């Protein structure tokens, strides 16, 4: 149960940490879903081509970073609205991964099987990555120059300009680190089940974003909130296995209902959003 929960939590938590630092730097990050999906896709393609899950993980990380870079180009360089860019990238990921599957393997829904890290918790480098990130990110955000610039870009970009640092560059760096994390989260999705399936992110990016807002844009707390979501999901799987009489269509909704309830109870204005979020 614990192992199951943590394995489920890893993609959520990595995506949430990506969302937390990207948003802290002032970029609205609705593209988490796209980063997860392309991360999963990249991991499956590279993993299949090389036969190594480690290289597959790298592929996922690269794909996540590529989406983050695309997001920054459109949102900052071209000045498009952040929310629209996020939604568009998610649409693109949904169609794009299927299109690429069709081109690469002549099939629109599944990739050929790839080797994963198995279901052991400690032998899985992605689990370790998530753990290290959950501890290191808050420290980095608070105590390093990178973190200071990231926070300044999100709260007072003009202050950053005054000391001669480009806020956009700080945002790019934050987004790339985040993209790498979310890409790794996506890699966990496809490597865990041994292949890429169309739309396999299934709304996890959005749930992760809700957790980011819930946690007041603090990466570690967001990751912790994701463990809560994962617990609800693991519980559903356990209940389904034991055939408790809850209809499966409704049991699947647990994370969504939970998120919505939390939003209703806590309110969306919980915590303090970065002041310059979505503005430039």
């Amino acid at each position, binding site marked *: 149960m614990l192992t199951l929960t943590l394995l489920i939590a890893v993609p959520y938590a990595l995506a949430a940490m990506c969302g937390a630092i990207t948003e802290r730097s002032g970029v609205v990050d*609705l593209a988490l879903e796209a980063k997860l999906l392309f991360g999963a896709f990249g991991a499956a393609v590279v993993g299949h081509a090389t036969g190594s899950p480690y290289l597959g993980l790298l592929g996922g990380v690269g794909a996540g970073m590529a989406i983050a870079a695309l997001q920054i180009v*459109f949102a*900052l360089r*071209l*000045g*498009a*609205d952040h*929310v*629209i*860019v996020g*939604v*568009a*990238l*998610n*649409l*693109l*990921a*949904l*169609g*794009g991964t*299927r*299109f690429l*599957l*069709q*081109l690469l393997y002549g099939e*629109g829904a599944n990739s050929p099987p790839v080797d994963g890290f198995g279901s052991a918790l400690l032998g899985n480098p992605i689990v370790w990555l998530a753990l290290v990130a959950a501890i290191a990110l808050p420290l980095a955000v608070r105590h390093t120059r990178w973190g200071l610039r990231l926070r300044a870009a999100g709260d*007072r*970009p*003009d202050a*950053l*300009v005054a000391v*001669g*640092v*480009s*806020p*956009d560059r700080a945002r790019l760096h934050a987004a790339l680190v985040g993209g790498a994390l979310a890409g790794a989260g996506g890699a966990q999705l496809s490597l865990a089940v041994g292949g890429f399936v169309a739309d396999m992110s299934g*709304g996890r990016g*959005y749930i992760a*974003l*809700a957790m980011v*807002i819930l946690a007041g844009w603090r990466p570690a707390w967001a990751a912790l909130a994701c463990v809560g979501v994962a617990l609800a999901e693991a519980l559903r799987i356990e209940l389904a296995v034991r055939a408790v009489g809850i*209809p499966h*269509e*409704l049991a*699947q*909704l647990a994370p*969504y*209902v939970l*998120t*919505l309830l939390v*939003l*209703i109870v806590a*309110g*969306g*204005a919980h915590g303090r959003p970065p002041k*310059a979020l979505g*503005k*430039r």
Partner: protein
Amino acid sequence: MRWLVARAQTRRELEAAVIALLASLAIGSLLVLAAGEAPGHVWPQMALRTLGDPYLLGQVLYKATGLALTGLAVAIALDAGLFNIGAEGQLTAGVLACAVTGAALPAGTPAVLAIPLCVLAAAAAGAVIGALIGALRVYRSAHEVITSIMLNAIVAGVVLWIGNEVLFQGGTTRGPSIAPGAQLPQLGASGSAVNASIVLAILAVLAVWWLRARTTWGRAWRVVGRDPAAARTTGISVARVQLLVMTGAGALAGLAAANFVLGHKHAFEEGLGRGTGFLGISVALLGRTHPAGVAIAALVLGFLSTGGLAVADLVPKELTEMLQGVVVLAVAAAGAWVQKEPGTESPLSPFRTRRTGACPGCPKTSQKRLRPQRREDRC
């Protein structure tokens, strides 16, 4: 003088749409090349096959009918500064309500009674979901993007559950048929699905256009979208406007159910109308949230998705799916691009107010990017 400014704005919006379409066409051509076909062959084939065939042409109109309604649902919310991703869930709720009402009516119900009842049920169901999103935003300041995504999933799950438990008949994924009186007449040739609900869509476009351009009410919702603080100062209740607009948006998305249930399938079916709500986002953005633009965008995207099937033997149909994302990205970027000059802000989109923070309201910097390297950009 005013009409000159208005024309300049309209020109800008048109420019943005044209640039976006050309950019999408260029990227689409690259995708076609990647699929190993010549763009010069695929595009004309797509147009010829789709527009030359009465059945496919009817399908374009059928898809455009649903898309125009969900597009309007996203567009009016966008005008009021809300991003309604929930059109999908609102439509799904509408489909269920519409089909259940239609099936519950006695078989002899006359059309004058049956059709309005079913249409009302669809709109009401959508409106409830829309109002819920609006209320959460207004009273709990929960971001509408998050809540509508959650509600999309929840509505889909609950509707499927209701379908499985009570509606679906004998192992199929189809519910009981609606009363014959509730069926809308078909308009298309050779069995295409276009039906009388296209009139509904046209009426909705006209109604939204009138409300938006000719009433104080429409003015209020656009002011709320552009500058909530200014709206509050002039005595507009931002909360009430947002709640009402989200309710109206939900009703519009719910209306699209008439196209699928009353006009085509005549019953509740699993997955009926799926994707139309999400695609409504692209429609609203491509149409620059103007009702006329939305109508045209609905036709363009309806053409694209039908055309993708028409040339499925040349390129994978996933290509047009991907193109829809490309179109939205291109519109977002082109919209920002044509708005570069200061002082010519268009009221059509709420996603435009841009301040550097360094010097709020200063005409020189308010529209420009912060470039630390170029000192003259700053005050």
